[in-house]
């Protein structure tokens, strides 16, 4: 196996990949922008190379700079993480062209799956059901005509899009033209490509995706589903597995479709087949993500498989460690995404400084994060701060743990969606598994945080915290702090220690 890996990413996913490398004795190389000069992923690596200024286009998207960093440090393989260049066929090509190992599928697969329309055509040939809709590239007149056949409601989607960017739901013909122009504008801004297309909008659908893995010896397996239906602004915020909507036979049908989809393109390494599931049990191919997924931890916890570990082994040419019949869903796992955003103001991203951060811990709790106290949230990158995962023997115990973990998750100084997520998880509709994509609009419309008047206990803690702050700032040291170096030394009466 290769001995040094460059991680072409930042934040929690860079840390996640580095941990998997270190367990296997592989050295790690971080890359960073000026905004990340002191970031956790830089401090965690064995080596670190600067790419450029903060904007992604000048750093994390600079293929040449990344390849140079690999060359200078002697890295033999590159892991793209997700986002940034992870689904850029040119990058996969350039990495291999430079004689390095790209930890992901072939450039051709990335390219064909990168175009929704090509992917759609491929899947139709492979016999995987797709949503009725138009080809991409048509002008507005053609689309408006086609809309009549598809029928309403329908969706306007960007050909190069993803994560809801450039997506519009249109419920009657009158609103179509405005939606087309808005979608084109967003698509152009986001992807420098304003190609759009239409497809049927399935009411109360569920977003069910299957984790697939292929090796270079022609073996392909799936690691079961993840339900990611709970979304805001068409972006996932809650993911879980198993899905409360699937029974064994449906799970098997969908799993086989996912494997067929992967086989149709000769898929290698980790990928995800996204399917749309209607209330009637019909499902349609949406798209295939040719990379590790943000929500991969729920699959790791439910199946016991280390997905990043498998990525490394397969990239090194090893065969898949397990056959399909050796894979099982052992436990129930739920992930929520912690964002710096304001759920009460249309989930707008917010920036600022997280003055104090305390992650929950305990049995059945995992936090994949790179957020620290006193950390500024850079405006240049995705505002996801961390992922909180809770698991247990069954769905109710995973939910109970998640509720408590969200209550214990402390992020002060910047607005987050933590309280919102708590109410999602605590909602009876969630307990009932009624988690289609309309969950939030239906159950939590125009949500506002309850902001009760502070109780006496809150005011007591506030006053005590303030007085400790004052004595800290006046530099008073605790009696026997004499010659000890300690960051807490100046906290005055707040000397720590379990024993007197």
């Amino acid at each position, binding site marked *: 196996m290769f001995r040094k890996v460059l991680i072409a990413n930042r934040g929690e996913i860079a840390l996640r990949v580095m941990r998997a490398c270190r367990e296997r004795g592989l050295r790690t190389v971080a890359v960073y922008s000026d905004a990340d000069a002191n970031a956790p992923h830089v401090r965690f690596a064995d080596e670190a190379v600067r790419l450029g200024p903060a904007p992604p286009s000048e750093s994390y998207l600079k293929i040449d700079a990344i390849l140079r960093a690999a060359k200078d440090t002697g890295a033999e393989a590159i892991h793209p993480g997700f986002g940034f260049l992870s689904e850029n066929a040119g990058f996969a090509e350039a990495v291999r062209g430079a004689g390095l190992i790209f930890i992901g599928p072939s450039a051709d697969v990335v390219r064909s799956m990168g175009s929704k329309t090509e992917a759609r055509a491929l899947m139709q040939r492979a016999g995987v059901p797709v949503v009725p809709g138009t080809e991409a590239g048509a002008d507005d007149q053609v689309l408006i005509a086609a809309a009549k056949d598809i029928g309403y409601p329908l969706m306007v989607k960007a050909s190069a899009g993803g994560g*809801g*960017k450039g997506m519009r739901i249109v419920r009657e013909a009158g609103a179509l033209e405005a939606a087309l122009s*808005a979608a084109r*504008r*967003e698509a152009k*801004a*986001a992807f420098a490509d304003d190609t759009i297309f239409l497809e049927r909008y399935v009411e109360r659908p569920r977003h069910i995706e299957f984790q697939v893995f292929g090796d270079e010896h022609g073996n392909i397996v799936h690691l079961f589903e993840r339900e990611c239906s709970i979304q805001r*602004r068409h972006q996932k915020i809650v993911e879980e597995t198993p899905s409360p909507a699937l029974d064994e036979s449906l799970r098997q049908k969908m799993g086989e479709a996912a494997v067929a989809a992967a086989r149709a393109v000769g898929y290698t390494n980790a990928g995800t087949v996204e399917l749309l599931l209607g209330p009637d049990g019909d499902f349609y191919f949406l798209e295939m993500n040719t990379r590790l997924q943000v929500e991969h931890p729920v699959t790791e916890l439910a199946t016991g498989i280390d997905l990043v570990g498998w990525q490394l082994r397969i990239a090194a040419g090893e065969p898949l460690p397990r056959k399909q019949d050796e894979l099982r869903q052992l436990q129930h796992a739920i992930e929520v995404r912690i964002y710096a955003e*304001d759920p009460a*103001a*249309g989930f*707008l*991203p*917010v*920036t*600022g400084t997280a*003055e*104090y951060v*305390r992650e929950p811990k305990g049995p059945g709790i995992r936090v994949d994060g790179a957020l620290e*106290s006193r950390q500024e949230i850079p*405006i240049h990158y*995705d505002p996801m701060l961390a992922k909180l995962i809770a698991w247990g023997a069954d769905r109710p115990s995973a939910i109970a743990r998640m509720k408590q973990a*969200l*209550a*214990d998750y*402390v*992020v*002060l*100084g910047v607005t987050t969606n*933590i*309280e919102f997520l*708590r109410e999602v998880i605590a909602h009876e509709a969630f307990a009932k598994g009624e988690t289609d994509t309309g969950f939030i609009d239906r159950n939590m419309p125009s949500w506002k945080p*309850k*902001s*009760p*008047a*502070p109780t*006496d*206990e*809150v*005011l*007591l*803690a*506030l*006053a*005590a*915290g*303030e*007085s*400790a*702050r*004052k004595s800290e700032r006046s530099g008073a040291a605790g009696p026997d702090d004499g010659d000890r170096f300690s*960051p*807490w030394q100046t*906290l005055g*009466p*707040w*000397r*720590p*220690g379990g024993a007197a």
Partner: protein
Amino acid sequence: MQSTWIHGDEKHTTAVRPGSDGLTIDVGGTQFRLERLESSDPGEVVLRNGDRIIRAYFAARGDERWLHFEGRTYHFTLERAGGRSRGGEASEGDLTSPMPGKVIEVRVEEGQAVKSGQSLLVIEAMKMEYDIAAPFDGTVAKVHFAAGDMVDAGATLVEIQVPE
């Protein structure tokens, strides 16, 4: 040490008198004798009030204070002697940008009457478009930006006259 705290539109006053073996805190006229528990976590505030343990997390920036207690985060602003306080809320009539970004489209003009929820302008940030809607009925008194302008977080975008 006495402090007055602004929480939403209420005010709360606390007074702390440290003693040798604990501290006395006055909240709204009631006196509490408390013991502080030492913690290695500098943001952790733990008090013992009889048998009851109060564990909270505290942070400060400028005149702002955040306190996390039993799963809820409370935001306070310290009232300065003059009564004026840095980083206070914007007055109800102003509509400020919740984030840094670029104005894509302005959909109202000055003098125009708007209804609560009506779209005023569109801001683009992080490659997404965000609709800035009127929080209440009123009349547009001033529009501070035009399409194409960059705006900072907290910048006043539109001033809306609230009908008396």
